């Protein structure tokens, strides 16, 4: 926060996430801004895929970073910043899912089945240029909805692994569960996703 910062200090963009977070703990706003810039895309993507709700994702992502800021003195140096950040994001997403379940404000499996039954979705063949934007959007909406109908504890693991690409060990830390449990949850989640998308997948298998 000092404008007359030491000119020999390393440029903020060259600092590691962990070094930036250490500066945030010292109330450095520029370091906080840089961390938000680095991670906002991943946080937004994570929460919007978990919730299947683009509108809410912005607010929830903001909430995640506010908590990073509020708890800046609780961050332990030596732990990976992104793991800490994803832990906060996963917990807030989990709470939001449970809140919606309580209010019965949630996606139903029926909606997904209707969507898959009625739509004219054709699986996108990467070599096929005739695929219309509309079809692509419908396909993506169906996949998003399929993920959203996977039960919460499997869904979080699935999105962290197969959309955000986190290693199993990091997912275990984020979800605070043993490594073996992470693997079995992801296996279950993948089978569920495959079953839900079956009507789409068959089309590609058929000649």
């Amino acid at each position: 926060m000092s404008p007359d910062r030491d000119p020999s200090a390393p440029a903020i963009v060259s600092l590691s996430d962990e070094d930036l977070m250490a500066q945030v703990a010292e109330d450095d706003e520029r370091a906080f801004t840089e961390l938000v810039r680095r991670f906002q895309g991943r946080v937004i993507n994570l929460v919007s895929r978990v919730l299947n709700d683009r509108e809410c994702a912005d607010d929830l992502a903001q909430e995640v970073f506010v908590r990073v800021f509020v708890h800046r003195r609780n961050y332990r140096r030596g732990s990976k910043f992104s793991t800490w950040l994803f832990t906060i994001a996963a917990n807030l997403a989990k709470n939001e899912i449970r809140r919606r379940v309580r209010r019965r404000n949630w996606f139903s499996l029926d909606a997904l089945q209707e969507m898959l039954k009625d739509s004219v979705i054709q699986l996108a063949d990467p070599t096929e240029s005739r695929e219309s934007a509309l079809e692509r959007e419908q396909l993506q909406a169906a996949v998003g909805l399929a993920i959203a109908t996977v039960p919460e504890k499997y869904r979080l693991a699935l999105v962290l692994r197969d959309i955000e690409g986190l290693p199993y060990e990091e997912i275990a830390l984020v979800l605070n569960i043993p490594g073996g449990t992470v693997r079995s949850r992801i296996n279950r989640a993948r089978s569920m996703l495959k079953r839900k998308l079956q009507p789409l997948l068959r089309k590609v298998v058929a000649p």
Partner: protein
Amino acid sequence: MNCTQARRLFGACWDDETTQVERELLESHFASCPRCRAAYDEFSRALELAASLPRVEPAPDLVERLLSRVRRLGPAPDHLPALRPVWLPVAAAAAVLVIVGILLAPWFGLRPAPPSGPSQLARQPVAQPVRVPTAAPQPAVAGAPAPRPGAGTEFVGIPDSLFDHSEDMEFILDPVTLHRGRASVARASLKQPGIQGEQAVITF
């Protein structure tokens, strides 16, 4: 390798975590079992579809909105003080006893307390938000508003919360040592006009 063994390897195969031997066994099983081959194709197609969803982009003004929000927050406490809801009923009961005592005092021939005493007590809300003294206030971030003169305390917590996390919130803020904390909720007095839900305060 039979079908069950083959299907058990689908995940590891997708994650590229199979050994050379496992991969060869799986390939030779696929060669003789079109159903497993097709099942693996469907499995990998489903995961490809999930992985190839377009990335959701943040709103362009997210950083600015966030900064203006955190600038309104007070300085960071070194450790968040624990708000223990178990004390709230006790404090409420004590306040009621004191007020009743003061009201009954004249009946027992006791001198009434000086006027400032009871009125101050009566003004005390039952559920006090957690406050910490900020004797030497240190602005949280550059441009953070200085504490009002005379205001010796700052709110601690997270204002403007759009989300109701009043239940089942469990934070693990330090993944290395796996510290656990359970959230408690400061009700009523922390509510801001127009904002639904309750404010969560994380304790450690």
